[in-house]
């Protein structure tokens, strides 16, 4: 029994089998999304912990990781430009372009988080840290979500034009940020700070939330041919190994199980376990950005009921 008109089901079949995601942006953009998200997430978690608990060794690491990760992350984007030397021009049109808005957001976040990190190192007026963490925390949140809006402004790629994407980036950024803090604090010289248990508990909540958001993201991307082709590409096509192995197993399951065992005391506290859970979780954060970027299937052109898949670009400049 045919549930779909012949032309439509053929098109889904044709797009589902030989379909490719966009080839205009590649691993550098995914790496930027991952590293900048991790840095902003670490900073936001540190700022929140300062509000709740006051400053300490772990919050200092978290706040410092913000500018230390987001700054270099921007180099991935600059390196991806056809004319890297002109990167300052990228901020010229914030009134309409999300890339230009991103330049403003990134610059403001780098300034605020660097000031906060300097305060954590050298000290300053007593009221400064709360003000800095409020401003910096807001900018960190914007740094995490604006990338979802950069992608969301691209109308012909339905896999990206969803309000779930900024949410997904925010949750994954917070989670990878917490794992980065956990990793650095554990591997730093001296005994691991006792405050890390609370961070791991928080990360358990974030990982569970992220699993739900990932499931929603894929479950609800089905309104158009290109959206269905994208989910097929990710869950059972060329990106399936990276999704199930990289995102689901390494990025979500491994850190959740290990951190749960650490928090509940089933595992002895050991740097090796933390390295495993955070290492796997961070790799998963990169794979998540990669499947989102590489899974961006462009809508086919439609002329008189016939669908035309747009050909890829013969030059792979991310090669």
């Amino acid at each position: 029994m045919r549930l779909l008109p012949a032309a439509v089901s053929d098109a889904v079949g044709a797009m589902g089998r030989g379909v490719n995601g966009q080839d205009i942006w590649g691993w550098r953009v995914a790496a930027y999304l991952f590293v900048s998200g991790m840095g902003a997430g670490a900073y936001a978690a540190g700022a929140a912990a300062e509000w709740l608990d006051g400053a300490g060794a772990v919050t200092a690491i978290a706040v410092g990781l913000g500018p230390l990760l987001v700054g270099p992350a921007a180099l991935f984007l600059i390196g991806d430009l056809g004319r890297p030397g002109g990167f300052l021009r990228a901020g010229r049109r914030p009134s309409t372009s999300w890339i230009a808005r991103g330049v403003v957001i990134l610059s403001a976040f780098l300034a605020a988080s660097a000031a906060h990190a300097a305060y954590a190192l050298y000290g300053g007026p007593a009221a400064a840290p709360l003000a800095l963490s409020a401003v910096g925390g807001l900018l960190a949140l914007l740094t995490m979500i604006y990338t979802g809006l950069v992608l969301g402004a691209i109308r012909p790629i339905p896999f990206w034009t969803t309000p779930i994407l900024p949410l997904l980036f925010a949750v994954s950024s917070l989670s990878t940020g917490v794992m980065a803090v956990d990793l650095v604090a554990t591997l730093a010289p001296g005994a691991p700070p006792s405050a890390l248990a609370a961070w791991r508990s928080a990360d358990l909540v974030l990982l569970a939330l992220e699993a739900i958001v990932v499931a929603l993201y894929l479950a609800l991307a089905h309104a158009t041919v290109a959206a269905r082709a994208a989910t097929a590409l990710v869950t059972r096509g060329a990106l399936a190994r990276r999704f199930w192995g990289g995102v689901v197993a390494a990025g979500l399951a491994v850190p959740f199980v290990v951190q749960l065992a650490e928090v509940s005391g089933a595992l002895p506290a050991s740097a090796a376990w933390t390295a495993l859970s955070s290492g796997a979780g961070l790799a998963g954060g990169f794979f998540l950005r990669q499947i989102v970027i590489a899974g961006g299937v462009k809508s086919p052109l439609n002329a008189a009921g016939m669908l035309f898949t747009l050909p890829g670009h013969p030059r792979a400049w991310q090669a």
Partner: protein
Amino acid sequence: MVIDLRRCVGCYGCQVACKAEHVTRPGIMWARVLKSETGTFPNVRRLSLPVLCMQCREPACLPVCPTGATVQRPDGIVTIDRELCIGCRYCMQACPYGARYFSDGDGAYFGATPTPYERAGAGEHADGVVEKCNFCIERVERGLEPACVANCMTRARVFGDLSDPESEVSRLVRAKGGFQLNPEFGTDPCVYYLPP
């Protein structure tokens, strides 16, 4: 511009005429012909779809440009200022019609050394920026038709002024049910197709 899909035989003449006019680099096609086929033998349907920059009235590529390199001229033609473009390729993502190409500068058609012909046309291109069809501004301003129109052997393409309701293009769109490609993206293209 109006393209009659019933007249088009998919000969790729427009694609080649465009290459000859603008000396675009390998892999870059300001104008190109897409083909699609559905059904199973012997009940199949094939269609050729010539595409180019649609010179949209509401171009999706324009607002996303972070530098202001993409501009819409008063006559409606969308152009790229290659001195401002930084090659971020956001516009390529935003264009629903795949009309934009990244020019990375390497490769000539015949080996490493460009031919005299390629050298003569090199001034129109730059490295590390995005480029696209400009409706052959240089020809239109001299009173000529765009190269893809002038060279179409079946006269499937008609060039004219859509803002004039009495022009041939306006009349064809009205009389023959001209349609725009993927109007759901809200781009309001200035290229119309007549049904096959």
